[in-house]
């Protein structure tokens, strides 16, 4: 294989890994939006928070796998609490109030993190065995990125199973189109909202831990992925998981190749892409409602 091809393939894997991470973050965002109508601007903050949890757990125990297990759960619990004690209270005031509340939350989480862990970038070592390169068919791949892709696929699979094979999933899919009606059929929708919100933040948390060794942990670590996740949700269509998946992978690749060829314009490309899509499809590719 020629070096150029190898480079293309390497970029593709980079893009795929980032796209998968992006999907983990965006999927929670889009389900929460679809069900509750809340555009959660603090969503990426949970991603970052989980990264810090991961750092602390690794510092204490030295075990990445333990961090992967616990940190996202910690982020998820924070999400549950936020839904239960803050968002639910302002639900009656409408979506603007909810949106602003998440803005406040975003600022608070950021400042709390800065106060608690400082503003330095902190390295997270890749777990043993995943830090090397693997060579297949004359080409080398970074193992960790393959691991990211694999893990994301597993999470994706579990999510699909829950969503399409369980009663909870059925309820969630129904609630995305009409939450009030679901409630009128005897389902405790406030509880479902809370669980889904928690699950969504857990997903962001998983992404946070997995991304930590790649991005390092610092207060700005959520900036790009948070913004990208919004683009994914908007372009893919509010509330559409399939849309989020397709667009996340596409953006991942766009990002990877963009950085390769036009480093300065790469982020611009993404926003331009979003503007073009919205100009023609204000609901996004797979969106059905405002």
């Amino acid at each position: 294989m020629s070096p150029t091809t190898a480079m293309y393939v390497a970029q593709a894997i980079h893009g795929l890994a980032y796209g998968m991470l992006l999907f983990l973050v965006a999927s929670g965002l889009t389900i929460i939006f679809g069900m509750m109508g809340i555009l959660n601007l603090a969503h990426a903050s949970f991603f970052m928070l989980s990264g810090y949890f991961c750092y602390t757990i690794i510092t204490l125990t030295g075990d990445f796998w333990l961090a992967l297990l616990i940190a996202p759960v910690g982020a998820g619990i924070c999400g549950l609490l936020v839904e239960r004690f803050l968002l639910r209270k302002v639900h009656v005031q409408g979506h603007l109030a909810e949106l602003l509340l998440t803005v406040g939350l975003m600022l608070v989480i950021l400042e709390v993190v800065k106060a608690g862990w400082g503003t330095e970038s902190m390295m997270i070592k890749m777990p043993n065995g995943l830090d090397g390169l693997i060579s297949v068919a004359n080409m080398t791949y970074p193992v960790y990125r393959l691991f990211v892709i694999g893990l994301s696929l597993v999470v994706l699979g579990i999510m699909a199973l829950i969503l399409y094979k369980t009663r909870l999933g059925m309820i969630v899919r129904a609630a995305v189109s009409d939450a009030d009606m679901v409630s009128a059929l005897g389902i405790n929708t406030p509880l479902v909202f809370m669980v889904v919100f928690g699950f969504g933040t857990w997903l962001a948390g998983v992404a946070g831990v997995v991304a930590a060794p790649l991005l390092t942990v610092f207060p700005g670590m959520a900036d790009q992925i948070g913004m990208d996740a919004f683009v994914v949700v908007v372009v893919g269509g509010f509330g559409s998981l399939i849309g989020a998946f397709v667009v996340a992978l596409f953006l991942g690749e766009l990002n990877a190749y963009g950085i390769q060829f036009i480093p300065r314009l790469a982020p611009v490309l993404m926003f331009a892409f979003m503007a073009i899509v919205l100009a023609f499809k204000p609901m996004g590719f797979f969106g059905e409602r405002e």
Partner: protein
Amino acid sequence: MLLEVKDLNTYYGESHVLQDMALSVDEGELVALLGRNGMGKSTTLKSIMGLVKPKSGTVVYKGKDIAGYPPYKVARVGIGYVPEERRIFPNLPVLDNLAIGIKGGKIDKGNPDAWTVDRVFKHFPALKARSGQKGSHLSGGEQQMLSIGRSLMGNPELIMVDEPTEGLAPFLVKEVRDMLEDINQTGVSILFVEHNLKVAMSLAHRLYLMGNACLAFTGTVEELDAQPEIRAKYLEV
């Protein structure tokens, strides 16, 4: 009394859309709620269901005041709701639409009277043929049947049906009317809002007539028939 509503007051913002509303439904009864547009019929159902929060008043269901309960709790005490526009889940197949209505997700095997998918299909044969279709692919009449069937899956003792025949083709109007009567025969009480007077008068045991935001008349079909001036004032246009 199965359901007894008293002094119910509901506001949308500052406008007082239900003023001291009162009504009752007995076991096995078929009760119609009539009135013109904008009088508060749908709001009455929504206030009972908890979809709109009433400001004051009592909603006593089987001896328990459920006013102000969230919708899911109202549903759990045994009230089914079939909304205007049907509001079926468009992206779910018919079977899943029905399954969502099952309380707790399991059909009570110990109860021989429990509603099952098969039993719903027996009442609405048209749905059976469409059981794999997505909700959005159904016709208006089929959606209405599905919406009623979905509420029955929760084994309610009372269902509240909002405008069951609205927007349906004439031959379907009669069909839906007959289905409601049929379901009532099985022991389910029904409170329904209807603006097709013919359907309402032929179906209901008892009627409530709403004037502006409050009750204007209550009685049997014969009693309303005997008072043409009331009918003229509140119903005919």
